C-alpha cells in the first residue's frame, strides 16, 4: 500500500454561485456550492477546491461566507483561493475554514508571499497555482485568470515557488481547460519531474482514461476537474473503480 492518487472536484465560484467557462471565459451557472460540496464529500472526493474566479474586492465577504458554509459540509480537506494578494487575506480564508490556500498571480508578482504564508501556516497549506500554455518549445506561465502572459517558464517557476515555500503545485493547462480533450500529459510530467512536492493536474478532463493517463504517463499525484463532476457526466465512485481496476491506487469510497 502507498499514498493514494487523489480525485479533486473544483468549485469555481463568483462568490455565492458555482460557474464554469471554457478557456477561462464564457461563464455559465453550474450550481450551489454548498449542495455540491455535500455531494462530493459523500461520493468519495479526496479533497475539494473552491476558487473565487471573480475575485472582486467588494465580493470577498460573500466568498468567505461560501468557504464557511462549504467547510461545514466537509470531512475532507478544503483548499480555497482566487485573488489572494496578502498574508492578511490568506488568514481570512483559513479562518473561514480552508485547510490550504492557493496563490497564483500575487506569487508571480511577489514570490516572497509564498515564504510568508509557509512560515505562518506551514508549507503543507500553501498551494502554488500555475496556469500554463504551450509556446513553441516550452510552457509559459500566464496570470490574471490566464489572460496575461509572463516571461516565466512553468518548470522554472514551479521550482522557484517550491524553494520559496509552496508545498504543492496546482497546475492548469490553459490550452486544455474546458475542452474535455484530456489533461496535458507532457506538461504535467515535466512539472512533476521538476519539483519535489505533489502536483495536482488540472484542465481538460472528461473520460476515466484521461485520469488514468495523467496518473501514469503524467506522473500526477492528484487530478482536478469541475464541470464533468458538476454535470454528473462522470461519477467519482465509477471513476475510482475504473482506476482501481487499472492498478492505480485510489481510496475507494465505502
Amino acid at each position, binding site marked *: 500500500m502507498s*499514498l*493514494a492518487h487523489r480525485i479533486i472536484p473544483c468549485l469555481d465560484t463568483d462568490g455565492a454561485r458555482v460557474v464554469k467557462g471554457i478557456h477561462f471565459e464564457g461563464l455559465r451557472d453550474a450550481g450551489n456550492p454548498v449542495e455540491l460540496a455535500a455531494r462530493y464529500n459523500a461520493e468519495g472526493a479526496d479533497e475539494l477546491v473552491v476558487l473565487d474566479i471573480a475575485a472582486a474586492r467588494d465580493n470577498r465577504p460573500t466568498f468567505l461566507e461560501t468557504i464557511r458554509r462549504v*467547510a461545514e459540509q466537509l470531512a*475532507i480537506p478544503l483548499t480555497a483561493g482566487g485573488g489572494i494578494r496578502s498574508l492578511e487575506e490568506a488568514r481570512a480564508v483559513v479562518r473561514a475554514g480552508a485547510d490550504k490556500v492557493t496563490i497564483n498571480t500575487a506569487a508571480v508578482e511577489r514570490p516572497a508571499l509564498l515564504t510568508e504564508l509557509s512560515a505562518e501556516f506551514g508549507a*503543507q497549506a500553501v498551494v502554488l497555482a500555475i496556469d500554463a500554455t504551450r509556446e513553441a518549445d516550452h510552457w509559459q506561465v500566464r496570470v490574471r485568470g490566464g489572460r496575461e502572459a509572463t516571461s516565466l517558464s512553468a518548470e522554472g517557476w514551479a521550482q522557484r515557488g517550491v524553494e520559496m515555500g509552496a508545498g504543492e503545485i496546482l497546475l492548469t493547462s490553459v490550452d486544455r481547460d474546458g475542452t474535455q480533450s484530456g489533461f496535458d500529459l507532457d506538461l504535467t510530467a515535466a512539472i512533476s519531474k521538476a519539483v519535489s512536492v505533489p502536483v495536482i493536474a488540472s484542465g481538460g478532463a472528461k473520460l476515466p482514461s484521461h485520469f488514468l493517463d495523467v496518473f501514469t504517463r503524467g506522473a500526477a499525484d492528484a487530478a482536478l476537474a469541475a464541470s464533468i463532476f458538476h454535470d454528473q457526466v462522470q461519477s467519482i465512485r465509477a471513476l475510482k473503480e475504473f482506476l482501481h481496476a487499472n492498478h492505480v491506487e485510489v481510496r475507494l469510497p465505502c
Partner: protein
Amino acid sequence: MKVTLIDYGAGNVPSVERAFRRLGAEAETTNSRGKIAEARCLVLPGVGHCAALIHSLDKHSLRQPILQAVQRSIPFLGICLGLQALYESSKEAPDLPGLGIFPGEVTRLPDTVKLPHMGWNTLQIIHPSRLLDSIAPGSYFYFAHSFAAPAAGPENVAVCEHGREFAAVIERGNLCAVQFHPEKSGAAGAQVLQNFLKVAA
C-alpha cells in the same frame, strides 16, 4: 463529555471542534491555563510548523498543565503536530524542547519521496487498540506533514510508510495521538474520534 481543545492558533482547530460536535460531544476551544488544568478530556490539534506550536505553548504557560493532565491519565488526543510535540525534540525546531513524554526525536521524512506527505494513506496495525476499534483493514486516512516520529516506540499501535515507516497512531493508557487528520479523514476519521470519546467516557 466535554472535550477541551487547546488553541495555539493552529488552522485546524475549528475543523476538529466541528468534527467532535457532529459526534454529539460538547467542545470548548481555549488557551487558558486554568481551563486546561481543569479539563477532563484534552485535545491538542496541530498543523504547520513545530516551532509555532512550542512557542505558543510556552507563551501561554501550557507546558506544565498539559504534562500534569497526562500524568493524571486524563484522556488526551494529539493530532498531527500534537503527536510530534509529545517527543523530546524535533529536527524541524532543533533548539526547542518538546514535551518529552516519549523518548526520541521527530525527523524529516526522506527526500526519496515527494514531500509533504500529502493525501490519503493506509495504516499497518501493530497492536490492537481502542482508538482503531471497528476500523476496517485498509482504511485510508488523510496525512499532511513532512516530519514524523520514530516507528519503533512501544507506544506505537499503528505505523504508516512514506519513504520510511513512522508512528501513525499512539496509545498508552489514556494518552492517544495520531499523525493523520481524523477531522479530515471522512467516515474512518470520524470513527477514530468516536473511539476517543469512548476512551474518555
